[in-house]
């Protein structure tokens, strides 16, 4: 039996195989998974916001913010023996749960989360190998650190593997 490790909103966790990292009910939040296939070690973050709204000074660097989650996770993975150059990334989530009339206030937060994640990955030089983002539905993720495969479950949608 693999160990199941749950990741809540604003959290990031890393695990070495055999272990499954899970996060439930991603809406406009984004799930960022990093994986080192050789070390069979992965990390999963469940981020809420693309970046701090006002000045970034005094704001704690946490996995609440998409812009910082990748850097924080890379640090953790390196501590577990991963090589940064071997890391690959997968993204899921970033949906638009409610109709477009609220875009004016929180302007497509799901899309902005996905964009922030891609920018952070590019900055860190980590290739994005798969994604299941957007849409108008929530997702749950099960990231198997033995294989690097993520099962994406959603209501009214077939189960996807990325």
């Amino acid at each position, binding site marked *: 039996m693999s160990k199941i490790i749950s990741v*809540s*909103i*604003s*959290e990031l966790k890393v695990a070495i195989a055999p272990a499954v990292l899970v996060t*439930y*009910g*991603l*809406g*406009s*939040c984004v799930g960022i998974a990093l994986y080192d296939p050789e070390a069979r070690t992965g990390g999963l973050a469940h981020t*809420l*916001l693309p970046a*701090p*709204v006002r000045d970034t000074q005094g704001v704690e660097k946490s996995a*609440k913010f998409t812009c910082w989650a990748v850097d924080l996770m890379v640090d953790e993975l390196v501590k577990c023996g991963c090589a940064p150059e071997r890391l690959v990334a997968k993204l899921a989530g970033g*949906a638009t*749960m*409610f*109709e477009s*009339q*609220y875009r004016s*206030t*929180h302007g497509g*937060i799901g899309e902005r989360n996905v964009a922030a994640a891609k920018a952070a990955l590019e900055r860190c030089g980590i290739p994005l190998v798969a994604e299941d983002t957007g849409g*108008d*539905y*929530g*997702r*749950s993720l099960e990231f198997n650190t033995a294989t690097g495969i993520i099962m994406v479950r959603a*209501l*009214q949608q077939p189960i996807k593997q990325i």
Partner: protein
Amino acid sequence: MKFDALTEEHLDALREVSNIGVAHAATALSQLIGRSISLSVPKVLLTDIAKVPEVFGGAEKLVVGIYLQMLGDARGNILIVLPRDSALKLLSRLLPREKSEGSLLTELEISALKEVGNILASAYLNALGTLMGKTLIPSVPVLSFDMAGAVIDYALIALGEVGDLALMVETDFFGEEEKINGQFFLLPDPESLKIILTAIGVHL
């Protein structure tokens, strides 16, 4: 105003004004569906954002979420969460029986549930606004039928921008003849919390 600066006295005052608000909302809903609906005495919860999905019964529970913004002199979010079976029971009171196609909601059902949200939120905000001597109005409601975690993360965005805590006023409502459960949440913006507390005469 930071949520962690709130004292028991502040939370008591919020509970008291919310009690009056939910009493009005219960009356409005009872009249709408022609059945007696009771609402529990509100709980005021100060929770870590990461723990909010647990309050809603777990991130994967299927729920109908009706979301409105509180506009006017104070701002925040209102989220009404109905478990799927309760939403369907409410609908059977509101609409002529339709052949349900699959587990998705029809346009008419969505519209009816949004109206329920509108009536609950309007009654609540009207009572709260009157107590405060301020104007509070709800925005047009939007609806999502999905996993609880996905439905509510939207409401956490504004809170996440300023801190890690969510202040929630939670009320359970239930029917007397048949089981209709739901939760009514008010998530005031931190800046608006000060306005609300000051207006109801709490010393800060």
